[in-house]
């Protein structure tokens, strides 16, 4: 019905307001059905990666942390940096779904669902790492304050404890947010599903009928959780940053770390959103919903955050450079010139230089370029986390402990496996739940129409008796 011009790179409107509600349901529900070969291949790859991770963990459990080639000065390495990386990924969803929801940026509506899913799954991925990096994994639950008659409690001064609290809280609330936001769509799925899906959706949709009272409660709850989630998200990554900022190690003991980490988190999150945006649009034929103008907006957002991150980065460097904390300065210089310098400069290139490509419209409108660009942005952000953890440990204060260390195979296996685990969860999600919010897209379309046509109609009927486009669309059978 709507001409293909809307799907080309010249498209200007966020969404074609003439799109029929029925077709929205149809498109989204279709995306949840009969997976094609590509899907199974992707799933197989993810599962394999995850399997490797499990093997590595079992090996490490049997032989001890030495398998990861950690040593007396490098007690942490990729595990913690990847943990920070995934925590960072988790912030995008909150940004899109909660923050933009509060500021009524309605272009978020077609894309926030998978972003929110990404939040949840990357949190579930991140949560793995603090556990597997423990020397005695089997005692991980000791960090939780639970009642024992030994009268033992965790050390509430330790940032790791704060981590445990923050992450669990954040995970719970983001799951809630994702789920509650999905309820109306689950109802739609329920009405169109059969078999086990029917039962599943019937249970999950909590008897949603879409009457006004339900909508009122729904809106209110959704808003509340959104408000609750935003400070939580900020605090979570601030706390993660305190794992480092609270220590006395040169290069870690930095006051600007909390905002720096939050910015970095949003940054990597947005980059990841671009990646998934393009993949979903391409594979699920979501051209009508995940349109170029929206992509364009996401890109601009990414660029802004990238600049904030770069700024904070430079602030940190400057504060070290002009301060007289010699060990910190040594660490900074070592980052730029030492054995890890390639990765440092890689981080700077991908993290601070590459974003400028987003200034060009043709880049923002070219899926293929953008896809790889977004991948490299994320590589840059992963390197950033690594460059925070390792160079500091390779120098520190005591010369006897100066040494360079390269991660062992178990570490690489776990890092790769974490992507497998994430991909696995996400692939399951897109086939079981609608990864585009149907009801909100409908709202979007509806509002756009209102704002555009209603007044036009009035004018036209007022001055010339010609029926306006609204009438046309109604004839062409919308809702």
């Amino acid at each position, binding site marked *: 019905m709507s001409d293909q011009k809307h799907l080309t790179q010249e498209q200007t409107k966020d969404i074609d307001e003439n799109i029929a509600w029925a077709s929205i349901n149809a498109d989204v529900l279709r995306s949840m059905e009969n997976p094609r070969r590509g899907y199974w291949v992707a799933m197989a790859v993810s599962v394999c990666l995850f399997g490797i991770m499990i093997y590595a963990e079992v090996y490490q459990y049997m032989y001890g942390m030495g398998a990861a080639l950690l040593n007396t000065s490098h007690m942490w390495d990729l595990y913690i940096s990847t943990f920070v990386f995934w925590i960072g990924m988790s912030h995008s969803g909150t940004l899109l779904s909660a923050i933009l929801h509060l500021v009524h940026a309605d272009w978020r509506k077609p894309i926030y669902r998978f972003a929110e899913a990404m939040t949840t799954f990357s949190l579930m991925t991140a949560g793995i790492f603090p556990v597997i990096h423990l020397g005695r994994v089997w005692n991980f639950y000791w960090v939780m304050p*639970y*009642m*024992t*008659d*030994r*009268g033992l409690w965790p050390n509430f001064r330790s940032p790791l404890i704060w981590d445990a609290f923050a992450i669990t809280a954040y995970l719970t609330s983001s799951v809630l947010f994702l789920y509650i936001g999905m309820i109306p769509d689950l109802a739609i799925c329920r009405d169109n599903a059969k078999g086990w899906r029917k039962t599943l959706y019937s249970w999950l949709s909590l008897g949603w*009928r879409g*009457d006004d*009272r339900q909508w009122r409660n729904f809106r209110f709850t959704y808003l509340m959780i959104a408000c609750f989630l935003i400070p939580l998200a900020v605090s979570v990554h601030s706390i993660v940053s305190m794992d480092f900022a609270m220590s006395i190690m040169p290069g870690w003991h930095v006051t600007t770390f909390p905002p720096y980490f939050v910015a970095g988190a949003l940054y990597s999150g947005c980059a990841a959103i671009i990646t998934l945006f393009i993949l979903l649009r391409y594979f699920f034929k979501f051209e009508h919903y995940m349109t170029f103008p929206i992509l364009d907006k996401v890109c601009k957002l990414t660029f802004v955050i990238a600049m904030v991150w770069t700024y904070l980065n430079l602030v940190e460097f400057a504060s070290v450079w002009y301060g007289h904390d010699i060990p910190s300065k040594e660490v900074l210089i070592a980052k730029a010139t030492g054995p890890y310098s390639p990765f440092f400069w890689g981080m700077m290139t991908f993290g601070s230089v590459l974003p400028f490509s987003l200034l060009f419209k043709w880049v923002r409108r070219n899926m293929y370029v953008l896809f790889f660009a977004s991948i490299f942005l994320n590589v840059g952000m992963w390197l950033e986390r690594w460059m925070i953890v390792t160079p500091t440990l390779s120098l520190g204060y005591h010369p006897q402990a100066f040494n360079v260390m390269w991660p062992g195979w178990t570490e690489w296996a776990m890092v790769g496996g974490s992507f497998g685990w994430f991909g696995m969860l996400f692939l399951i999600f897109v086939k079981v739940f609608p990864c585009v919010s149907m009801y909100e897209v409908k709202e979007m379309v509806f509002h756009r129409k209102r704002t555009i046509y209603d007044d036009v109609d009035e004018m036209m009927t007022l001055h010339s008796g010609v029926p306006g486009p609204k009438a046309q669309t109604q004839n062409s059978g919308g809702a």
Partner: protein
Amino acid sequence: MSIERNKRKPFPWVKTAVAAVVVGALIVLGAQVFERQLHPESAGIAPAARVPGAEFPTDTFKGKDVPQPINYSHKLHAGDLGINCLYCHTYARRSKVAGIPPTAKCMGCHTVVGTDKPEIEKLTQMWQSNQSPAWNKVNDVPDFVHFSHERHLQKFLFDNPEMDIKNAPDVCAMCHGDMNQVGVAKKMKPLTMGFCIRCHENNQGPSDCTRCHK
């Protein structure tokens, strides 16, 4: 249509809350049971410890029956004959470990007493063949726990004005239960960390970890 809708029962917030609380309580309780390994059935012997000025945890433990090379009966020796614990476990007051009495000590009596009993014959035979019986350890704590009999006896028995050496059984009973009632030795107290901690709290024992864990 709309009327029915409005008649629909509201969501049972209260019930949900109550359920949540109950579940939480169960979890906490479960954790406790798991931690202190409380065994529902007691050993059936009330620990009879009368130590003035000392309050000690009363929970009991049903230890398994540990087979011993010689069926030595504490009930007979300590209970009926009233031999003092420290007569045999003489190292208890001088060392971390209470120790098993040397065979010579047994033979001190059993060269004349009850030489016809089969168990005693076993003992005599071992003694003559110069080998010491391989006793199975009954009361054991993990190897990272360093418990000192010496210090505890000192505090509760010798430094306690109201106590006299003949009250040793009461002091021992604080952690070993009333051995006068059992035959072959059995573990009758949990001897878990919680068990120790409660006693230390009640009796102003040290709370510093390194007192026990080194």
